[in-house]
């Protein structure tokens, strides 16, 4: 096989392999990606609703959400467009707390956003202390372009799963592919297995 990319040496650090999923590069900046205009959602009309597969639902206003136990996760995040950002600092409510608001035995959950965006994940991936509804980044209120006033944070999956401007979770017994999952992206999205696109294993 002929040598590919003659003269390419690369400048990426080879020493970050343990923290950097395959095909990613580290960035200090915080790129913004979204499919449409940034919605501006005021907190005084904001609410978050969890709905079970039987239609049972539970909602929180902004103040009620802020009164729930708060956590401060520090996590690495990985975007399917190949940037990774280490040690990002957030504040928010564990999805364990919110998911406990309804009784469910569904295997899947769809996150729904104020702009109509959706994304799907197995229920097991938003419980067990691995996912949050976050409202602060680096000690400041989350800005609208980064999904403020509140977004999901599911750091062990590609970042499109961490829905911006999220307004609720809907538990489902059938897996329902969301916005990007219908537009060519992988149904699950594990960065460590490089599950980027439909045809990836």
């Amino acid at each position, binding site marked *: 096989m002929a040598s*590919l990319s003659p*003269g390419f040496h690369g400048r*990426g650090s080879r020493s970050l392999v343990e923290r950097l999923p395959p095909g990613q590069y580290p960035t200090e900046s915080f*790129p*913004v990606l979204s499919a*449409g205009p940034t*919605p501006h959602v005021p907190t005084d009309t904001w609410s978050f609703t969890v709905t079970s597969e039987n239609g049972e639902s539970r909602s929180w206003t902004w103040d009620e959400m802020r009164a729930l136990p708060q956590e401060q996760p520090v996590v690495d995040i990985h975007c399917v467009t190949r940037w990774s950002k280490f040690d990002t600092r957030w504040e928010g409510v564990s999805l364990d707390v919110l998911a406990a608001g309804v009784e469910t035995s569904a295997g899947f959950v769809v996150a729904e956003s104020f702009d109509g965006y959706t994304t799907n994940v197995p229920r097991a991936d938003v419980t067990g202390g691995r996912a949050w509804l976050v409202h602060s980044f680096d000690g400041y209120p989350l800005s609208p372009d980064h999904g403020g006033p509140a977004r999901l944070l599911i750091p062990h999956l590609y970042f499109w799963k961490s829905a911006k401007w999220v307004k609720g979770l809907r538990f489902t017994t059938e897996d329902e592919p969301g*916005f990007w999952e219908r537009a060519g992206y992988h149904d699950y999205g594990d960065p460590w297995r490089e599950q980027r*696109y439909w*045809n990836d294993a």
Partner: protein
Amino acid sequence: MSAPKTGRSPSGGWWRARLTSRDGQTTTGRTLRFEVPGWPGHRPGQHLDVRLTADDGYQAVRSYSLAAPAAGETVELGVQTAPDGEVSPYLNDVLPIGAEAEVKGPLGGWFVWTPETRGPLLLVAGGCGVVPLMAMLRARRAAGTLVDPCALVCSVRAPGELWYAKELADPTGTEDLRVLYTRQAPPGEERPAHRLAPDDLEGLPASPETRCYVCGPTGFVEHAAALLQSRGHPPGSIRTERFG
């Protein structure tokens, strides 16, 4: 050994891509054309991943927009050199003509437009954000879909930063083409240099059915998308793609 079947992605989804030409667009932007045996085609607005491999096996991958509609096994990319970039300076200045990289794609099923999509079309580009929009404009020109109004607004900092300058000046086009300068206007330009403003969109398609595509750096996209909404375009009619 038999040749790979056309349209079937090779193992791992990576196609070998041989650089066949490179042309300057701006001081830091280049048009690169690759031959990709087996390339299945793509839709205007889609992108692909380019993978480079160093001698020690180290690999780096970045996404680049396709600048032209599908044309057999040739793909055209618009690559802007990123300051301190790892991949773009190599692609733009080092990779020899005739040498190979690998590509994966086509990718992206949202920021796309095909000539079958009817209705007014409004394309708004910041800098090299024009690249995927150029694929849409070229596809429209090739299809001869001239009934529906179409406009391309290009915002650039200075005259030397306009991509596809010759093609956009083509008087045979039936599109409304507008170039806006934000920092330095060319001699004779009546509009003083400033960022995209409501006046700059006057007379362009404004009906709620208009399909809007906005591509550019984040600050530009935020500004342009807000402006489009203020002139009545519903959020759901505005598709965005950002970089940087």
